[in-house]
């Protein structure tokens, strides 16, 4: 009896995973299909990958995506780490208020964040561009950095910072040489998380960029309207692999910490 129920449990789980991942598997297989037809396998080939790297609009979008992700990661990691240190030093009440304000954007649907940022830029009369997209990415990355640095600060002996001052360190020196090294693990995890989120964001980018500055996700979205070329299968497959690796690294770090 238990063997049968065991079998059904596994079978059910397998079914769930199968339906979750079959589209991606199909996508990856199709990206190696030599023919243009999706119904017929015409042999294994790297054609689409070659075309991918010769397609200037895709290469431009790749540059936008990566550069936005890198810049947003750097800026949000700095701001987020300093914010976490500030929040940690607060008294209980204001700290609780700050944490709610930090958590709120994470629970909000991306579409709400995207639309409200767009409205903000319109309201402030800032034309949407690369810069507005970058600002948007920084703003949605910051809470994640705060949330990964704060637990590290909480774990720390509350006298460690005072010990540094006591030994002659100025507050500035103590920040750079004691506080930040102490929560380095949390900072790196936060940065990786910010980079991953920035890399695969579509909704917020869509609302905050101009039509002539496209990142990969907005480019793919506009391409689907015209009928999609298998080049995009290759592109999507690559993005999937990169994000998968990043996610595995983040998960491993979070478990170790």
């Amino acid at each position: 009896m238990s063997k049968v129920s065991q079998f059904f449990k596994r079978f059910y789980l397998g079914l769930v995973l199968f339906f979750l991942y079959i589209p991606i598997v199909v996508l990856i297989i199709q990206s190696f299909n030599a023919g243009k037809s999706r119904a017929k396998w015409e042999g294994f080939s790297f054609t689409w990958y070659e075309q991918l790297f010769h397609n200037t609009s895709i290469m431009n979008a790749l540059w936008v995506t990566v550069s936005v992700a890198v810049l947003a990661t750097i800026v949000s990691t700095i701001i987020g780490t300093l914010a976490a240190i500030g929040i940690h030093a607060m008294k209980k009440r204001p700290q609780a208020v700050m944490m709610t304000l930090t958590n709120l954007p994470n629970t909000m649907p991306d579409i709400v964040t995207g639309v409200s940022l767009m409205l903000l830029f319109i309201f402030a009369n800032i034309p949407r561009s690369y810069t507005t997209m970058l600002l948007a990415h920084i703003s949605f990355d910051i809470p994640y950095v705060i949330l990964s640095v704060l637990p590290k600060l909480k774990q720390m002996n509350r006298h460690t910072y005072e010990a540094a001052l006591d030994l002659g360190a100025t507050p500035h020196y103590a920040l750079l040489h004691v506080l930040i090294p102490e929560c380095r693990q949390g900072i790196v995890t936060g940065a990786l998380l910010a980079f991953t989120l920035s890399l695969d964001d579509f909704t917020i980018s869509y609302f905050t960029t101009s039509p002539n500055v496209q990142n990969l996700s907005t480019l793919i979205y506009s391409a689907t309207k015209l009928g999609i070329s298998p080049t995009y299968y290759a592109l999507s497959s690559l993005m999937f692999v990169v994000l998968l690796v990043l996610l595995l690294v983040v998960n491993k770090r979070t478990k170790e910490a």
Partner: protein
Amino acid sequence: MVENEHLIDLNHITKEYDGVTVLDDISLYIRRKEFVTLLGPSGCGKTTTLRIIAGFETPTSGEVLFEGRDIVSLPPYKRRVNTVFQKYALFPHLNVHDNIAFGLKLKKLPRAEIDRRVDAMLDLVNLSGYGKRRVDALSGGQQQRVAIARSLVNEPEVLLLDEPLGALDLKLRKGMQLELKSMQQRLGITFLYVTHDQEEALTMSDTIVVMRDGHILQIGDPKHIYDEPANAFVADFIGESNILRGTMVRDELVHFAGQDFPCVDFGFGEDAPVDVVIRPEDIMLVGEDVGQLTGTIRSVLFKGVHYEMIIDCGAATFKVHSTTMQPQGSRVGLSIVPFNIHIMRPMERPGREG
């Protein structure tokens, strides 16, 4: 050993947090090379006093003088004091050597000089060869030694220690008490030590400051505090005591437990209410016929060095320590020499003597 010059003066220090007074008009001084202990139950303000001297707290009012100069507005990193924290607060991302070298690096000493002084310190705290170890790989006692070395290497004028032995087990604590005391004498550094452990205070200190509820109850050397406690609280806190309500009949005669006793105290006036304090080891058990009081032994506990007996004398119950045991239920006589009867006004608050 202790010099007469005042190194630190606290004058009328008051500290309030959100309207709650944690230190109420505290005044005390610390002399050069003195080992001063702030002793009291938790919440008495001893740690706050220490943190005010270290510079982590600013007093609401009053002045902190260091060699006669007010340092209230001086940040901690400019004060010539170092602190050993309760749970050590070592830097986990640095190894033992770099933890100890932290303060010296800030002073921009040459590398060779730093290494020499760190090695000398490791030697002093019996951790030679541990320089490359991670601090979280050390035992509690070893971490404690690193914390002490990290502070002492800076050659502070005063070393502040906040219950530094609190996390160690009894045997290790006893050993460290002796080591700390001998270190203090050898290096000639002033120590300000915070503890709630009266035995620790009696063992190590030149001067003990007994505190309670943000007030100083008594300041004196260990023997003085033990033998002449200023009030019933100090007597009870330092060692064990029998504390009874009594009346001072006249000079050198006190009435308690239904009887008059000759004593050596005077100046309380006639028929004044007083607290009478008698140490359990100062009550002698004698024959029933020759005692000043007679009573029945209610219980006997073996305490290692002595027996602790509770004796019911009708009008009062006494705790008595004696190396000879009397069986439970037997009748005994109690005798107290006048010198061992301590008379005090209920809760007085004296300043520092001598």
